[in-house]
């Protein structure tokens, strides 16, 4: 067989060390970008913003790939604990801070300090980061990131003032998966990931889920993640 050599190492090990290498490269890339940014003050080329966006995206996709792979292997379990929702929002803002500093986009957060949720916080913040990163690309000037209690769920919501989701990524039905079609090469991995992670969060007979629509208070896209 042509692949016996690979089998002897084991694909999980290959994947793990590839991820490790790519992550180190990404880290170095970001450091170098930061150094270049310092040289190119006023007027700073707009390409920097694009570069920052792309490195964020590569990083997020990589994390998602690895997590989904482990879920598929059943080598995965959630690290559920009680977390403050405002801490999670703060993490996301920190992760996005470099990109924000390169644009004129306003990222507003709204959350009660006493709101707590039960979740795997690093996974949830990873899923939300991807979507906020995308929102930065598709909005005009404003993103609202909020968390609130709705009945038995804590709901994280991202809304912007852009043109809204395209038709194929919309679902108004709570129980319905958004029409994510990974096979046609379209985006939507971020939503798919968020939905997968949400579904893993279970409390008695309730399960997490996501909803996408274009009812943002600013007229653009709105994404909601429900955690029981």
């Amino acid at each position, binding site marked *: 067989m042509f692949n016996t050599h690979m089998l002897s190492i084991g694909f999980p090990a290959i994947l793990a060390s590839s991820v490790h290498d790519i992550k180190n490269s*990404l880290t170095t890339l970001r450091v170098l970008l930061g150094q270049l940014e310092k040289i190119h003050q006023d007027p700073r080329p707009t390409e920097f913003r694009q570069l920052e966006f792309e490195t964020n995206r590569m990083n997020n996709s990589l994390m998602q790939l690895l997590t989904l792979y482990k879920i598929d292997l059943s080598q995965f379990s*959630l690290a559920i604990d009680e977390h403050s929702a405002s801490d999670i929002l703060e993490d996301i803002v920190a992760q996005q801070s470099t990109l924000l500093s390169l644009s004129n986009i306003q990222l507003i957060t709204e959350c009660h300090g006493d709101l707590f949720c039960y979740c795997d916080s690093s996974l949830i913040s990873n899923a939300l980061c991807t979507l906020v990163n995308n929102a930065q690309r598709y909005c005009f000037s404003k993103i609202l990131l909020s968390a609130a209690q709705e009945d038995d769920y804590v709901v994280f919501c991202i809304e912007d003032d852009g043109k809204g989701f395209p038709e194929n990524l919309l679902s108004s039905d709570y129980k319905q998966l958004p029409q994510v079609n990974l096979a046609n090469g379209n985006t939507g991995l971020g939503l798919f990931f968020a939905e997968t992670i949400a579904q893993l969060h279970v409390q008695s007979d309730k399960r997490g889920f996501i909803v996408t629509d274009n009812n943002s208070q600013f007229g653009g896209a709105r994404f909601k993640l429900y955690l029981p």
Partner: protein
Amino acid sequence: MALNLSSKKILVVEDQSIMRETIKHILVLFGARFIVEAESGINAITAMRIDKFDIVLCDYNLLRGKNGQQVLEEARHFKLLPVKSIFIMVTCEQNQEMVLSAIDNKPDDYLIKPFNQQQLLNRIEKCYARKEYLASIENEVDSGNLYQAIRNCEQLLQLDDKKMRMQLLKIHAELAIKIGDFKKAEEIYQNILQERDLPWARLGLGVVAFFLGDYEQAINTFQYLIEHYPVMLEAYDWLAKAHELMGNDEHAVSSLNSAVTLSPLSILRQKKLASLADKTQNLPVAKKAYTATIKLGKNSIHRSSGDYSGLANFYLKSNATNEALKILGELNQQFHNDPEAKLRAALLETEIHQTKGNKALAQQSYGKAFKLNEQFNKRLSRELRLEMAKIFYLNGNSETCDGILSDLIKTNIDDKLFIKDIVKMCTAIVGENYAETLIQQVKKELVDINNKGVSLFQEGNIKGALAVFEKAVASMPDNHTIILNVIKIIIHGIKTSKPDPEKILSAQSYINKAIQVGIPHHQINVLQAELDSLSIQS
């Protein structure tokens, strides 16, 4: 709160110079003045020996030598990190936390690469805030004053800070388990589980059942957790312990083996697996685990000569004597100044030469072992001493064997598992009731000491009684009855004379010792309460 790092001593451990530069740059922006860089684990340890750092940022994947986890273990082992310092492990992978999950040593927090300025600072800030909040507990834990730590924890809980509530409850329950107050721990976990099915609280309930001796209930809980959270390594470790105490060593091996497959990097778990697999004659697993332990041990403080002799012994049992000798060669090379290692090597050499029918060489090796034992016996690990007793008996020296065995029984009389090992060895090699007779002798000796001390006490000779028990503690440092009697006498002494802070300290240190050796809570807490009321008066 704007973080100011100007007064903090910071160590950055990272093998890539470009990353070190970046991290340093961010830290300087926020006022840091004292930053030391280390590009390897060894240099990090050296730096920590020279300076006491407030913050250590350590990359997990260091290219050569020790990895981040090994740096942390060594730093904690040699107490190079002050209690108030924070250690942040920088990793590449989100779930590495679980994969790395070391049995004992966890960093204060993890930081996932790549991170930006804001993320790094947020992490440091949060760690600091938490550390400061919990300082009143952690300081007492560090000094061994667990009862005071629990009181401080309860005080913080009364402040009703919602963000800290869960963490405090978790600490409270863990401390309750440490002092043996299982009822309290169970109550805390049950209350949390009524709010939400949190995996760590369920694990806690299993641990409580384990300590209460309800192994079946404990096993059920751990199995439930593994089914629902297949990557929860602690559940596998506890499941193995419970199986071991039930006498199901095979089940224990299979549980640890699953954990090791998920997380092959924890040396302590590999070590435990190796010795259990060895015990159950599961040679393939033993070989794999010993080999892994030796490899992981190269950069670890947990390396030991026993790993090498274990593997050599495996080869000996598989009739691969040349392989066995090769491993012994490595053992001698790696531990050339270690008497315990030399002794292990000599013992195995004896067996190997015997197997090969080489009587003269076997005799020579035995002579070497005998001499080393004479020189170092009491300083050797108890497992090795038990092994020595067996070899002496097999070589016709039953007197030395007796001496070792009664000393081992005396010092370990309260450790059921180890006494079980002694009985097992004796039954297999020496004879049915051999160990039992020795155990009865030791128990009688204990009763005699006790009676002598108590009668002196009743005669009013407090000093004399204390002397009897303190002498006994010196020869049997882990014996429950004796420790308890020492504490009672000291407390009585404090009550009947002038307040004496030194005596209070001495009593407290024996109470801390009592917790350490696992004396049940209901026996200690009365004494602790009495001592507390005395220290308030003085």
